Structure formats: structure tokens, C-alpha cells
């Protein structure tokens, strides 16, 4: 099959529909290895889009390659928890064994080794992606074997299967993970009750979004339901946000592995309530390995009469399609996610209008988190009163926590809302903890004197991440890792976030290299104040949170790195003469500069 035939087959499968561009690009790349200029031209012509827009999309996503990549593309998950498990030494060792510089494709085009944002395996790192397949539990031994397989060009499909095993590690179950619902049970209850009454139950249960923001699910569904569709194809849509990109979060992965039916059923119930016939599940590219099992689960539901037309012999019609992301944290923001579903770069939209009135294809759309939709099944089955018994007055139900970092038993813990940080630490076997990063880098860093605070919307709201740092950890390095994350993931649309995240990253690196001064710390505070108010979306608004929190709670971690109390140069002065020294062969005293604080 020629490349053109391959591309055409992909295009046919997607009906040459430009709004499916991200899927078209992903499938094309899976088969051809990369997206060559001619490939993009061909695709643009087929979908009738300007070529510049196709290349604009292709260049937005980290997992798309518009330049040739190695036949083996190794991407190490680089969250702080991977670092704590020693991924740095493993990356160095791998590069050394392969005679590679990180980020460069080897000259024979065989392999490249680089880092990527958290791959959602925080409880079983160090983790990596090899040709976008997830590998967990890396060790020196496994590394040696892997390098051997790469050198002898053994196809990834033939690598040891246990390398690709992903454990659920469910450590504590409550009403959601311990559910005993049969497929279709919750949906039958919802159909029995009807959309209005089901909506009323969701509202009475006071269900709030589990993705972090905590918006009332009932209000969202109601607004979507009440908004009229428009244009030539009026419709309503349900979108399940499975773009679980917040570093340290992996509970959606577990739900989609162990409770996929519950998630799909929650989407169907949402569809019933808002009047949608179609649901889309946006799965992060890092979870590519879940695509086939999820497609199988969908097929099973179709043959069981739980998806498609006349669902459970009613006139309700609903089906679900899975879209894969391609390495962009920003797509977890609901309007950016919708842009991506439409084939565009994941750039958050100007709001209002909100997705509930103008979302996917400009139609009313409800975007809900995986866990929220699963929880909706419990409410549909058992009713609002039963559900609201769990948790607290303002935070009903339970929350899945993705516990990782310094503890004996990392994994998934489900608690009724209101559990204290200390309780979770005890249950997972954490000792000598100095801090917990709640809800990931964009969340809150709580120190030991705050461990009696509670996981709840009224105290510590969370999307699920619970990263533990014991007293041996350097909280400055934690914040620096997060600063790098945000600089990498900023979409670049608005000025304060595009430039600010890079300035913050550079200042943190400067302090890390012992070139910092109190001036730099003042600058970090100033950037925090600017970015928090002026950024276009939540990413920029929260990008300085980890720096701000650690500066307030762990300031000595910064101070002991400061060079002096005086103003310090922005760069290493002596290193700035390196090229001239190399070219002139000089090494006399005048061929060196003292750095600041030493003069």
C-alpha cells in the first residue's frame, strides 16, 4: 500500500471530515510514522481546509511529528513522582547506552529519547511511552533489556507483555468502586424516571463536577437541556472529559479500566437528560492502549441494546464515539477540548458563550468528568436522598484520590468527601510527610500543619491528585518541576501565560543553578499576581500556584539556594565566554569572568 493509499483509507474512514482532523492525523501517523509536508498537503486538500490550518493543528500537539522521528520514540514521563523514583538516572543511562543526546533522533534514524508530561502512571513509575504505548515500573534491569530490543529492532508489539501491564491498584473502595450495578441497571432506572425527574435527582443529590472546578452537574445539564440547538444540524452533545492530564492524577484511567460500563452509562444518562443522541469520549493520547478495550466495551453495549436506537426498548437513541488526544494538557480545559474535537489546536475559547449553549459544532454541549458521569449512575439508581447521605453537606458523595509519592501503598483511594489529609496519609502508609500536593500542580500544596484539612469543595477541592512528599524531599525542586510543566503545556495564546510561564521557569532554573537573589523571588511574586488575574484560562491563572505556595510555606528551600543578597546576573558569566575560549584556545585569567557574589 502506498503512503497515499494509506492516507486515503484513513480519510475515507473519517468521511473526509475536517472536524475529525486530530483523529485523521493520529491514525495517519500511526501508520506512516510521521506527518510529512506532502502528507499534510494531501490531507488538507481532501478535507477542504487551508493547508496552514492543518499544519497549525499538527504542530500544536506534542505527539504529532512534523519532522521524521526515530523508529523507536521513547518518552519518559517526567512528573516529580517519576523523578522521585529515579527516572533521571534511568534517562541518562538510556541515552548513554544508545549514544544519544536527549531529544535528538539518532543519526541512523533508529531511536529518540525525550521526556513528556506525566503519563498518568504515578503509582507505578518510573513510566514511559514507547511509540505511544505505556510502559510502567521501569528499572535498570528492564532498561538494559529494552535497549537491547531497540538495538536489534524488535517490534514493540513483540516486547514482553508484562512491561505494558498497567495495574489498577485500587486500595480503598466506597460506594462508587464497590458498586454492584449490572450494565443497563442505572440507565433503566433513569428511563423509568424520565429525563426531568432524573435531572431533579441529580440536582437534589447536589452532585458537583469531579474535574476540579466543582460546578453543579445538575445546573450544567439543565442549562444544556434548555439551550436550543441551532443551524442546519441542531443537536445536543455529551462529552466525557477523559483528558486526565493533571500531573499526579490517574483515577480516570482506573475508572475506564475497571468501570467503563459505568462511565458509558453515565454518558447515556446525561444524553437522556440533555436530549443528546451522541456522546464523545475524549481520551488522552497517553491512554492510547485503552482504545481497543473501550471500543470492545462499546460494542458489547450496542449488542446488549444499551447504545444505538430504541435503547432498552424505549425511543431513546444514543451512541458514543471515542476521540483520542495527542499530548496537550490544555485540552483538559473544556472549551479547548471541544476545539480539539473539532480538529483544531486546543485553544480555550472566549467565554461566554459557554459550551452548554455553544459547544461542540456550536451546539449545546455538556462536558463532564469521567468520575462525575460514573457517580451519576449511582444517583440514577439509588436516588438523590441515598447519595446525599454520603460525604458532607456541601460535598455529597465520594471522591477518588490518586495517591502517589512517598508512601507504602500508592494507588486509588475512594473516600466520602470530608476525609482529612492526615487520614489518607495514614491509610496509604505515609510517614514523615512534609507536604501533599492536592489536585496536582494547579492545585494546592499543603504543609504538615494543615494535614487536618479536609478533602471537600468547602476546604480542599481536588481533581484527584494526592502527591506525597516526605521530609527528605526538596520542595523547591517540586515547584521547579511544575514550573517546567506549565511552560511546556501553555498553549501560547495569551501573553501573560505564554511568556509568563517561561519567565517563571527560567527564574526557577536560575535559582536552581545558584544564581538567584531576593530580586528573583520578588519577580516570581509579581508574575504570580499578573498571571493569576490576566490569563485567558485556568492554566495561566493557576500556573504560579506551586511556586507561590512553596514560597510561602517552604521559603528556606529557596533561600538556601540564593547566591547572595545582591542583584545577580541573569546568566553564567564565565560560561558566556566558552565559545570564544574554544575558538581562541585561551585559558588565561583574562579569558574568564567571575560570576556574581564571588567578585
Amino acid at each position: 500500500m502506498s503512503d497515499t493509499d494509506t492516507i486515503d483509507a484513513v480519510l475515507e474512514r473519517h468521511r473526509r471530515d475536517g472536524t475529525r482532523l486530530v483523529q485523521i492525523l493520529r491514525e495517519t501517523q500511526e501508520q506512516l510514522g510521521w506527518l510529512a509536508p506532502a502528507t499534510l498537503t494531501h490531507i488538507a486538500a481532501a478535507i477542504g481546509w487551508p493547508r496552514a490550518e492543518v499544519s497549525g493543528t499538527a504542530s500544536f500537539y506534542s505527539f504529532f511529528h512534523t519532522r521524521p522521528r526515530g523508529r523507536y520514540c521513547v518518552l519518559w514521563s517526567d512528573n516529580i513522582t517519576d523523578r522521585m523514583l529515579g527516572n533521571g538516572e534511568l534517562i541518562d543511562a538510556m541515552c548513554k547506552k544508545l549514544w544519544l543526546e536527549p531529544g535528538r533522533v539518532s543519526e541512523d534514524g533508529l531511536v529518540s529519547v525525550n521526556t513528556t508530561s506525566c503519563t498518568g502512571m504515578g503509582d507505578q513509575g518510573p513510566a514511559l511511552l514507547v511509540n505511544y504505548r505505556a510502559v510502567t515500573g521501569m528499572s535498570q534491569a528492564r532498561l538494559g533489556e529494552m535497549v537491547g530490543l531497540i538495538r536489534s529492532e524488535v517490534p514493540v508489539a513483540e516486547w514482553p507483555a508484562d512491561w505494558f501491564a498497567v495495574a489498577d491498584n485500587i486500595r480503598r473502595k466506597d460506594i462508587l468502586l464497590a458498586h454492584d450495578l449490572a450494565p443497563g441497571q442505572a440507565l433503566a432506572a433513569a428511563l423509568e424516571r424520565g429525563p426531568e425527574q432524573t435531572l431533579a435527582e441529580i440536582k437534589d443529590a447536589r452532585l458537583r463536577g469531579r474535574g476540579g472546578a466543582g460546578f453543579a452537574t445538575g445546573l450544567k445539564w439543565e442549562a444544556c437541556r434548555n439551550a436550543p440547538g441551532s443551524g442546519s444540524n441542531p443537536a445536543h452533545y455529551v462529552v466525557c472529559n477523559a483528558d486526565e492530564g493533571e500531573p499526579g492524577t490517574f483515577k480516570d484511567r482506573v475508572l475506564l479500566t475497571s468501570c467503563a460500563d459505568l462511565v458509558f452509562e453515565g454518558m447515556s444518562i446525561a444524553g437522556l437528560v440533555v436530549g443528546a443522541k451522541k456522546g464523545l469520549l475524549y481520551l488522552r493520547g497517553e491512554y492510547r492502549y485503552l482504545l481497543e478495550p473501550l471500543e470492545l466495551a462499546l460494542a458489547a453495549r450496542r449488542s446488549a441494546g444499551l447504545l444505538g436506537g430504541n435503547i432498552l426498548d424505549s425511543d431513546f437513541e444514543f451512541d458514543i464515539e471515542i476521540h483520542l488526544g495527542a499530548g496537550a494538557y490544555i485540552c483538559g480545559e473544556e472549551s479547548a477540548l471541544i476545539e480539539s474535537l473539532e480538529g483544531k489546536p486546543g485553544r480555550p475559547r472566549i467565554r461566554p458563550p459557554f459550551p452548554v449553549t455553544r459547544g461542540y459544532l456550536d451546539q449545546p454541549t455538556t462536558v463532564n468528568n469521567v468520575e462525575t458521569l460514573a457517580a451519576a449512575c449511582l444517583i440514577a439508581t439509588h436516588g438523590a436522598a441515598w447519595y446525599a447521605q454520603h460525604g458532607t453537606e456541601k460535598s455529597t458523595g465520594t471522591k477518588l484520590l490518586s495517591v502517589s509519592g512517598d508512601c507504602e501503598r500508592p494507588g486509588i483511594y475512594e473516600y466520602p468527601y470530608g476525609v482529612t489529609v492526615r487520614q489518607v496519609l495514614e491509610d496509604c502508609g505515609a510517614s514523615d510527610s512534609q507536604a501533599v500536593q492536592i489536585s496536582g500542580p494547579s492545585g494546592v500544596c499543603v504543609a504538615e500543619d494543615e494535614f487536618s484539612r479536609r478533602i471537600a469543595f468547602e476546604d480542599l477541592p481536588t481533581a484527584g491528585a494526592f502527591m506525597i512528599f516526605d521530609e527528605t524531599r526538596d520542595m523547591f525542586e517540586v515547584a521547579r518541576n511544575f514550573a517546567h510543566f506549565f511552560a511546556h503545556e501553555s498553549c501560547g495564546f495569551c501573553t501573560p501565560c505564554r511568556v509568563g510561564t517561561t519567565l517563571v521557569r527560567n527564574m526557577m532554573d536560575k535559582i536552581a543553578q545558584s544564581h538567584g537573589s531576593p530580586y528573583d523571588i520578588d519577580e516570581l511574586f509579581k508574575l504570580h499576581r499578573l498571571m493569576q488575574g490576566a490569563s485567558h484560562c485556568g492554566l495561566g491563572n493557576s500556573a504560579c500556584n506551586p511556586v507561590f505556595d512553596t514560597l510561602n510555606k517552604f521559603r528556606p528551600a529557596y533561600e538556601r539556594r540564593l547566591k547572595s543578597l545582591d542583584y545577580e546576573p541573569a546568566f553564567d558569566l564565565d560560561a558566556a565566554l566558552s565559545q570564544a575560549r574554544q575558538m581562541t584556545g585561551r585559558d588565561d585569567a583574562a579569558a574568564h569572568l567571575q560570576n556574581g557574589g564571588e567578585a
Partner: protein
Amino acid sequence: MNAPMSATPPLAKKLRVATTSLAGCFGCHMSLLDIDERILKLLELVEFDRSPLTDIKHCGPCDLGLIEGGLCNAENVHVLREFRSHCKILVAVGACAINGGLPAQRNHLDLRDVLEEVYQTEYLTSHGGIPNDPELPLPLNKVHPIHEVVKVDYFLPGCPPPADAIWKLLTDLLAGRTPTLGHGLLHYD
């Protein structure tokens, strides 16, 4: 009760001023001279320390230092540090001091390629190779504005800053006012 206002002027002695040009073209200094006859008035108020106008080689304790030009070599860094350690107030004067200016337009080139092109390419006349005399200051990998190396108190943009802008800055500073530039005096070109 407020203390009675002093009748004596606040400045009993002349301010000591140093100036220098680092990686600059002396255009800012030329613009300083463009204040014309006001320079006589200036000389009543200030005395010059190290400056191209005095030929004093090293800066002593000063009230005010004016720096033209950015940092393109090791000597620029030494001079800048000498100024910073001796001047109570340091002013970056002109585009090059403020953002590297024209010399910084080499920054997208690798310095090694630049040296090779200039000193080792056939069609150019210098066949002596890349100069390595210890007397010569080594160039920095990149050109930098001065605020990346020392704390700068005030900035006076322009290429060059207009004479009136320089005058305004100096008279503001001499009078103890925070310098401000209105429309027409604040220019980047």
C-alpha cells in the same frame, strides 16, 4: 509643628558623574553633547569622573553613572561592574544598553560561526586566524543588555536618546525628582 524649611539649596556640592560606552557607538555621548550651551549649566552642577570627556581611566566614587552600550565582551562586564560598585545611581542610556540593540542582532548566530566567518574564510583578507592575544577581551557567546548583569536604577531609551531627554533626565535627577519623559522625549528609535 513642621520643622522650618531650610533656606539653603539641597545640593551644597557638585554631583560627581561618570559615563562610558560599552558595546555602543558613542552616539549617546554625541547626543549628550547635543544639549549645546546647556552643557555650561551642567558643568556648574556636576563634575565628571571617568568619561570619554575626561579621559580618566578608572571610575572613583560617583553619584551618577551613565552607561551607553550593551555587553558584548569580557571587558564590558568589568567596566560595568566597576561603574556599579562606584555609582550610587546607574542609568542605562540608549537602545544598546537597554536591549542589546544593534550588536545583539548577532545573537541568532553562533559565535563560533561568526569568528570563523570573519577570520578564517578565504575571501576575507585576514589570514592571521582568530586573534588570541591575552590583551584582547574575549567576546561573550551572546550580547546582553546591562540589566541582565547589574541592577540598573533608571533607563533612558532612544537610539540615541534625544538631547532634550538626556537633559530632562539629568535635571530631574539633580533636583531629586524621579525622572519622567513625556511624549516626544520617550523614543525607542
